[in-house]
């Protein structure tokens, strides 16, 4: 029964994918959209039953299908592990997935390849489910690569535009760099433990088996590199902002709520491993903190509405990694969930705006939408308040927990995290003010067409906004349901912060910080009615920020171009050299031939001399040379 249900969970989206691929065009737009949505909704329902079952029994559901890979020392099975962690993930993957499918029915309605869009989305959900429910690292890797592929397909969905294709390709390749790290990590773990099953590794580690600590650290580091690629952390984050080339629902689903959190899922999954490698944990925390700061800084000056959100995503992911690095897995998970709610809402809201403006994404050409798009505005506002960390919105609780943990363990990281939070509050409100307040700055034509989005778009917005509002209840300070729920999958007991004076002080600081950020944004964009300068007029440090610290250019200069240069070198020099060597051998033979030919003088006298001398040499060699 469990097996069948699990297969239904997995294959419902896959069936949706197949149907949409093969029959989507014939079904028509509405039907293919509905089909895709139903497929994911089925998964959601199945997830819900499993979720309730696991909450009741407390026991994970294990499904073993067949032996997949055979290696000399161990086998890898095709198996699923539906435990607290994976079900929690599935809940929001399929839940938000369903909402975004609903949203897409309306959003993508004008696209000729809508059935393909839904096919890819279904495929993505399929791989995401695989990633989450796999019972070993290699099944996770299937999903890991699979979601990367879907991300590639969806970013490049409008494949006629080569810039979008470039962005898609970049995302795929950057992800693959991380994947290599992941793969190496898998190799080391397989080598060390002779198994890739989570449970086996966890048992081996908890039973105190003799394991080389250095290799363990390297394995953990490699896994983290994989997480960096997928979750857009330094130095592999540059693909995520470019990935905004894809349709907005894709950005909401893949590049905000689900796929990019796979890295956090993986680290949480392997928490028993990371707990034993404090050095790597430190690395994770530092990378997370720095990423969050840098991304927030870049986000301060971006003018593309989706780019701001993208950098904000990177920044929030950085905060989650900060939490992971500090060993507070349950807090990271908490933030993943709240972030999924409000970030999905923000992206969908921005999609609604873009939809209303017929593809306009530059905030300098927006403004004053508050009056026209009421629902979008309100939901957007709620989410913005949530991400800025104001109570009682969900973001406040999760972010506060992260900062509180950081404060207790490392003050520097706390300062960086807080700084990033203040910046977040600033740029999010900057976004809000520029988009919804003041007067409309676009063309007359656009102004004429301004309208609130249809119900299929606003409905998911409302649901997500409510979740962003109340999502915090799952882990209230002092009485956390989530910590309790996740306890079986975490090797160490959850962090428990006493609600003492320090805690209240930290909350206060966080709120004040957020308010400062909001205040600065208010004074600049409402009071002074400032509009960001045109590209050419940006100078100084703002220009560096605006150009994202020139990271892309630097990567191009130090990695991509050298590879091409080496390629040219290989093509022009070494290939010629190898070829020349081989042809050279031929030439030598040829030359020997043409030189030797002249020995053939035709003079019989000469031949006779050679003949006699040859006989002499043979006789000498055989009889005399001793």
């Amino acid at each position, binding site marked *: 029964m469990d097996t069948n249900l699990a297969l239904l969970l997995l294959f419902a989206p896959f069936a949706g994918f197949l149907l949409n*691929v093969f029959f989507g065009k014939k079904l028509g737009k509405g039907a293919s959209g509905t089909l895709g949505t139903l497929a994911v909704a089925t998964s959601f329902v199945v997830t819900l039953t499993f979720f309730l079952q696991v909450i009741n029994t407390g026991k994970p559901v294990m499904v073993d299908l*067949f*032996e*997949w*890979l*055979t*290696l*000399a020392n161990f086998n890898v099975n095709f198996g699923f592990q539906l435990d607290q962690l994976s079900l929690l993930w599935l809940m929001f993957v399929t839940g938000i997935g369903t909402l975004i499918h609903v949203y897409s029915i309306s959003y993508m309605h004008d696209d000729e390849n809508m059935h393909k869009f839904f096919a890819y989305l279904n495929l993505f959900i399929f791989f995401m489910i695989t990633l989450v429910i796999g019972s070993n690292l*290699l099944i996770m*890797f*299937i999903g890991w*690569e*699979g979601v990367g*592929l879907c991300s*590639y397909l969806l970013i*490049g969905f409008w*494949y*006629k535009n*080569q810039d979008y*294709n*470039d962005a898609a*390709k970049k995302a*795929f*390749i950057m992800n*693959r*760099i991380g*994947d*290599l790290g992941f*793969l*190496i990590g898998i*190799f*080391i773990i*397989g*080598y060390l433990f002779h198994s890739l099953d989570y449970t086996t590794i966890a048992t081996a580690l908890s039973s105190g088996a003799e394991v080389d600590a250095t290799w363990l650290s*390297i394995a953990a580091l490699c896994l983290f590199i994989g997480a960096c690629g997928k979750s857009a952390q330094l130095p592999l984050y540059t693909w995520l902002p470019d990935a905004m080339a894809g349709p907005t629902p894709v950005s909401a689903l893949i590049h905000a709520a689900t796929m990019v959190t796979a890295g956090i899922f993986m680290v949480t999954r392997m928490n028993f491993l990371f707990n034993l490698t404090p050095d790597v944990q430190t690395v994770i925390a530092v990378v997370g903190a720095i990423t969050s700061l840098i991304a927030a800084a870049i986000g301060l000056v971006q003018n593309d509405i989706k780019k701001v959100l993208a950098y904000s995503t990177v920044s929030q992911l950085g905060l989650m990694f900060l939490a992971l690095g500090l060993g507070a897995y349950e807090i990271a998970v908490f933030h993943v969930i709240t972030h999924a709610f409000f970030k999905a809402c923000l992206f969908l809201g921005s999609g609604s705006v873009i939809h209303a403006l017929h593809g306009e994404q530059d905030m300098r050409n927006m403004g004053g939408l508050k009056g026209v798009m009421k629902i979008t505005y309100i939901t957007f506002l709620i989410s913005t308040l949530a991400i800025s960390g104001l109570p009682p919105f969900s973001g406040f609780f999760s972010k506060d927990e992260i900062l509180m943990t950081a404060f207790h363990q490392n003050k520097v990281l706390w300062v960086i995290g807080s700084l990033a939070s203040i910046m977040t509050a600033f740029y999010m409100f900057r976004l809000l003010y520029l988009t919804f307040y003041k007067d409309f700055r676009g063309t007359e034509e656009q102004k004429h067409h301004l309208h609130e989005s249809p119900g299929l778009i606003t409905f998911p917005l409302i649901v997500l906004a409510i979740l962003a509002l109340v999502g915090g209840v799952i882990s209230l300070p002092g009485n956390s349901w989530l910590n309790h729920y996740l306890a079986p999958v975490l090797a160490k007991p959850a962090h428990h912060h006493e609600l003492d004076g320090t805690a209240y002080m930290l909350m206060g600081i966080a709120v004040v910080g957020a308010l400062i950020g909001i205040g600065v944004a208010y004074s600049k964009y409402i009071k002074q009615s400032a509009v960001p300068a045109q590209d050419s007029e940006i100078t100084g440090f703002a220009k560096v920020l605006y150009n994202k610290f020139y990271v892309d250019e630097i990567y191009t200069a130090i990695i991509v171009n050298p*590879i*091409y240069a*080496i*390629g*040219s070198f*290989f*093509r022009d020099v*070494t*290939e010629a050299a*190898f*070829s020349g*060597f*081989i*042809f050279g051998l*031929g030439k030598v033979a040829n030359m020997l031939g043409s030189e030797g030919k002249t020995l053939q003088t035709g003079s019989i006298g000469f031949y006779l001399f050679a003949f006699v001398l040859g006989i002499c040499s043979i006789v000498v060699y055989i009889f005399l040379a001793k």
Partner: protein
Amino acid sequence: MDISFVLIILLFGAAASYFVGDKWASKAALIFSTAAFAATAYLTYKYTGGASVSYIKTWVENPMIILGFQADSLSLTMLLLTTALTPIIILATFRNSINNSRTFYALILFMAFAMAGTFVSVDGFVYYIFWELSLIPIYFISLLWGNGDWESRKKAVVKFFIYTFAGSLFMLVAFIYLYQKGGNFLNTTLYRAILTDKEQFFIFLAFFLAYAIKIPIIPFHTWQANVYQKSPTAGTMLLSGIMLKMAIYSIIRWQLPIAPKPATEYMYVFVGLGIAGVIYGSILALKQTDIKKLLAYSSLAHVGLIAAGAYTLTLDGIRGAFLQMLAHGFVVVGLFYAAEIISRRYATGEISEMGGIRVQTPKFASMFMILVLASVAMPLTFNFIGEFELLYSMAQTHIWFAVIAGTTIILGAFYMLKMFQQVMLGEQNAKPFADVTFGEAFVFIAIIAVLIFFGIYPKPITEFITPELERLVRIINRFN
């Protein structure tokens, strides 16, 4: 019915395709190659049932030469690959108009015959005869039905012929030397031959030259890209899909078990050479402007990885090499077929002159995409299974091998996606591109089905080959 029957079918098919005339040659070739595949499948079924399907007979008394075609799981698998790909390759030529097609198809079947013989021979001498025999048809196929102007084609093909032939002669010398030691050419005898370290070293080197040129491992690869480009696509498919597998199979079957000591001692050198090929081929592929050349260099990278895996001498590496050999055989045939379809319709191989195909033929684009993904070792394709085992074996040998060789999954994605983007995506090209026909789609679907089925469920193959591989690995590691 034993395994010689398959060879007879192929040989007879070659003769039949020649004599039925130009009009029916392709059909006859297709029928006979399919029959060979069916016979092989039946024999494999019989073999798994426990029956012996080998054919062993003394051919010449002095020197002792045995006409032996042994069917064990490895040779049967390779025979299956050969006989499965041959009909696919023949089917892939159906849309072309081929001059003197009866000779063409006869040569293809003859080549399949020679390659099949190489895979199943147990006698080194017979093996060598088949090995060299396979060179003759491909020489004519590439020379007479190739692309480009005659002079440059002739130069490339003759270079290939002389180069591989010269390399193989070293192998012959090694065999003759081994004969003196063993008394006959049977591989089981040669495995047992007692050789000093020095003898092993030179024998290993002689085999290495033959195989390294054929595979090719850098720096012996210079013939490859040009020949792949100049050959007709059927020739390229035969070369890359099956013929280079002969060399890898021979490494596992002949070179390593006969002379394992140098392989152990200089393992890092040979694994390193293979991995260098991976990087070198990948980077060069990035710079190619011709689609067939790009695929040629990508093939160089992939087989470099396979060879490196085989030279790790671990069970994982050798099994990975074996699996990847099968997977690569299928995927490379599919990719070259796609390249052929594109370049035939556009009448050029230049990537820069392509683009916007996906708009016109989404079906073809999807199938091509799946092949590209398989070639970059996407999980759930057969290639992933092979590549994973290969990289894992390298990680066991030295972690840096795995890291450096692993860049293939990055660089591979880089050049393949770049190619895919330039060829398939973008605005609609001015030139119209007809949608794939049923026959063309059938070839792709057959290949894709194989790749995905074994990507999800490779157990039938691994279970089939593992006992035999374990035996070989024990022989290879007998000195440790």
